[in-house]
Each structure stands twice: as C-alpha cells, then as structure tokens.
C-alpha cells in the first residue's frame, strides 16, 4: 500500500516488478478510508470492520468488484 506521484509512476513501478496495475485511489478517498477504519481505534469498543462493513465502505467510495471484496476467491 504505497504512494505514487502519478498514474505514470504507478505504471512504471508495476511494470518493473511484473505486477498488475490495480485501481488507483485519490488522496481524498484515502482519507475517507483512513477515518472510517481508524477514527475509533483508541476507543474501548473499537474493532476492525467486518467483511460486510468493508464492502459497504468500499462501495461508498466507488470501489467495487472482486478486488475489493474481502471474501472473494477470485485471486487463488
């Protein structure tokens, strides 16, 4: 889970390692993910989101499909 200066730099990095290019996330989307995941982490009743909650969080950001499905078996 890394930062890149541009889509071009992502493509170069993936090509150099033989990795597929995955969906790209903007900084605003990343902030939403970070706050959704972690804003209650220091509280007594905090817990990691469950699979159905993860799907809902991702879908709210337009992140859908097998790549974002925490229970997908499409990747071996």
């Amino acid at each position, binding site marked *: 889970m*890394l*930062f*890149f200066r541009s889509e071009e730099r992502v493509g170069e990095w993936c090509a150099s390692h033989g990795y597929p290019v995955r969906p790209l996330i903007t900084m605003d989307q990343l902030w939403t993910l970070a706050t959704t995941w*972690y804003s209650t*982490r220091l509280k007594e009743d905090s817990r990691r989101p469950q699979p159905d909650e993860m799907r809902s969080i991702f879908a709210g950001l337009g992140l859908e499909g097998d790549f974002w499905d925490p229970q997908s078996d499409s990747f071996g």
Partner: protein
Amino acid sequence: MSLDTQTKLAIYRHFAETGQRPSLQVVAERVGSNVSSVREAYVRLRAQRVLVLEPDGVSIRMAPPFSGVPTQHVVIVDGTTYFANCAWDSFGIPAALHRLGHVHSRCEQSGEPLNLDIGLDGPPPCSWLFHCLVPSAKWWDDIVFT
C-alpha cells in the same frame, strides 16, 4: 472490561502517547496482569486482526495504524514521531488521534518526497495517488507485504 480489551487499549494508548511499541512487561503492568496472560491476549488480538507480532510472539510489529518498527511512512503529531505501516495507515494515525498531523513519505517509483499537512478534515488538494497491489481478500495472508 475484558483482559483482551484492556490489553488492546494499553497497546494503542502507549503507541499514541510515545510513538513507540510497548514491551510485553509494560503492557502487563499497565493492565495489572501477568505477562503470561497478556501474551495469551496477544494471540487472540492477532486473530482479531488488530495486532501483528514479530516471530518471537511478544514484540509488536503492527498495531494498525501504528508500526512498531521504523518505516518510510513517518507521521508527526504534536511533536511526536510515529511510523505507519503503509500509506493508508499514514493517514490513519492523525485520524485515530483526531489531531493535525504531518505525513512524510515518498513516491515508491521515483523517490520524490511527499510532505502533507493533514488537517482535521483531511489532506489539502493533492494529485498524488495511492496504489494497493494486494486484493482485499488476501491482505492478511502476508500483512507485512500488503
């Protein structure tokens, strides 16, 4: 409050206060229990995916978003330096602390530095991108690589 919850809070609050991982002994003292019981709580917290341990079973590698070891993702909040496990977690630290923060990282391809002042409402307009290589279903197969 259960021992597991006390242990989790002791770990996270130690990270929040110091930027560093606590030792098993420090956590045990903080929760008023013995190291053996706290070690067992560590195993259960790992199963809940809120803790990642080093191979020794007692040193904390990750208490997401906090990293127990130095990384390229550095976050400064109120003068305290924190290390994040990944780009996502670098935003997660100011989000967890509900404080303003400064994120220092880099473009993984070019090495160009990234410096972002994170406000309570998030980062300023920024064209940088976040890339997650590993599919969601596989994140915890090897969370350090993820």
